[in-house]
């Protein structure tokens, strides 16, 4: 009896410490995230009257949004941007990771170089690429002997942004995949060599299944990042860019609607839609993973 009471006193003390230690984080999350999340949901059903005052207008913002061509264009641009960046980016990153996994010298040096864009502010990176892509004097056109208006031509603008995005993320993805590759035991490949399996067969039957969990987490991360693309487009496009509508992503449209046009109700509807879309894409990936991701290694 006595002992039980003592234990429960200790347990109560532990509980108090637990609450005290999580308090700053939980209060912070409630104030900074939970409540704002609810507010954004609510604001998406409201008209912004200015100075943070809102009037409930039902689903009017959503009706306006779904009837707006610019919005659908931005949705497509976001999806298209993912199609452009995710498969190519991950394939190239895997290729780099495989090369870095070979017995080579200066491995650390290469890794440092490929990783470099990650520590550079996207704003600065985008600025450099604006110059490289410049239609009149950009070095890329000079090297190609071409006359492509990369950033202002509606056909190429989003491709230009995608190239910068892939260039920026390759090193990061490669480092993650390299960690996965290094965990594969050499004995699998030795056994396959003895069986006379070609390198290509080995790649598809050993490498891919063995790193599929890493590949999956890189895929999810890259998809989420691409769905949220904003800063590169903000830096590479201007309000006067004739290709603006053809390159703006949902998050860029959200920024322009909310903070340039000041229509925060409509902006909230856009961001709610984007989050819904990201959720849907993620769920599809998690369902699809059962077909190809191999966790029992």
């Amino acid at each position, binding site marked *: 009896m006595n002992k039980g009471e003592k234990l429960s006193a200790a347990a109560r003390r*532990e*509980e108090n*410490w*637990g*609450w005290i*230690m*999580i308090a*700053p*984080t*939980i209060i*912070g*999350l*409630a104030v*900074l*995230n*939970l409540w704002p*999340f609810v507010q*954004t949901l609510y604001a998406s059903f409201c008209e912004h009257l200015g100075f*943070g005052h809102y009037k409930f207008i039902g689903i009017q913002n959503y009706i306006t949004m779904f009837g707006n061509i610019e919005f659908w264009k931005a949705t497509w641009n976001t999806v298209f941007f993912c199609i452009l960046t995710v498969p190519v980016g991950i394939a190239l990153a895997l290729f780099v990771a495989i*090369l*870095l996994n*070979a*017995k080579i010298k200066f491995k650390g040096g290469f*890794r*440092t170089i*490929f*990783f*470099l864009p990650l*520590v*550079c*502010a*996207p*704003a*600065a*990176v985008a*600025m450099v690429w*604006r*110059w*490289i892509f410049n239609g009149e*004097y950009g070095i890329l056109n*000079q090297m190609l002997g071409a006359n492509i208006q990369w950033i202002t031509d509606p056909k190429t603008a989003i491709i230009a942004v995608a190239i910068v995005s892939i260039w920026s993320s390759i090193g*990061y993805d490669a*480092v993650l995949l390299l*960690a996965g590759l290094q965990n594969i035991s050499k004995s699998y490949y030795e056994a396959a060599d003895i069986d006379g399996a070609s390198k290509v067969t080995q790649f598809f039957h050993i490498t891919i299944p063995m790193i599929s969990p890493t590949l999956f987490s890189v895929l999810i*991360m890259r998809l989420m990042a691409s769905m*949220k693309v*904003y*800063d590169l487009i*903000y*830096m590479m496009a201007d309000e006067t860019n004739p290709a603006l509508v053809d390159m703006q992503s949902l*998050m860029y449209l*959200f*920024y322009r609607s*909310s*903070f340039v046009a000041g229509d*925060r109700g409509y902006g909230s509807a856009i*961001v*709610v839609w*984007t*989050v819904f879309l990201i959720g849907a894409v993620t769920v599809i990936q998690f369902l699809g993973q059962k077909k190809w991701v191999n966790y029992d290694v």
Partner: protein
Amino acid sequence: MKSTASLERSRRITTIITYAVLILGAVIMIFPFVWMILTSSKTVPESMQIPPTIFPAQLILDNFKDAIASLPFGRLYINTALMVFWRVVCAIAFSSMAGYAFAKLHFRGKNLLFAIVLVQMSLPSQIFIIPQYQMVAKLGMANTIFALVFPGIVSAFGTFFLRQTYMGIPTEIGEAAFLDGCNQWQTFYKIMFPLTGTSVAALTIFTAVFAYGDLMWPLVVNSDLDMMTLSSGLSTLKGQFSTNFPVLMAGSLLAMLPMVILYLIFQRQFVEGIAGTGGK
């Protein structure tokens, strides 16, 4: 015999190709930086020459002077440093406490409260931005360092990440300290926290790099040029010098330099820190 020789030869060819491709890749990764540095020292007519000249005729610093004249770089460095510093300190202090409690202590409501952390982690930060901005505005704190730090005061990701770290530390270590008369706080602060150095370093680098590159929040919340960060300040240059690329390159170089220097000094910690936090 012949087959081993040919095997040896094909292996050597593979090695050569591997190096060639890696070097080509490295050149593509490095080139934009080199081009930025070279352009930053050219005159405008020089930068527009066709065919282009590779090296500037002479090293001039005028572009850097112009960039500094139109952007208060001194302020931008200080603002960015303060924002990064406070975000890192808050993330480490609060996330360590919460991460330890979630991993090692028993208390009612633990699972529900941890679910809040997970939900926040999986939502894009943009969904919080409008109300966060309105809060800052209502407090009259727009255009302050506090505003820059505000959304980073707590870190759901940091909490999740450090919880993982504390779960990896044997509970017996804490219990031993507890039996020696430490209370829960002392056990955490004196015994457990010092064991998480690697993870704390990783979280520091991750938080710093992310805060440094963040663009939307500083643009929204601090519109005074004097209160901008390097990222948001740089973005105002493109309007002022839309075709003057030498000045834009000089400005970009000044904006990215501090983090690049830190990266070159702490390469291994950066790569392992960022990849180690993100890969989980």
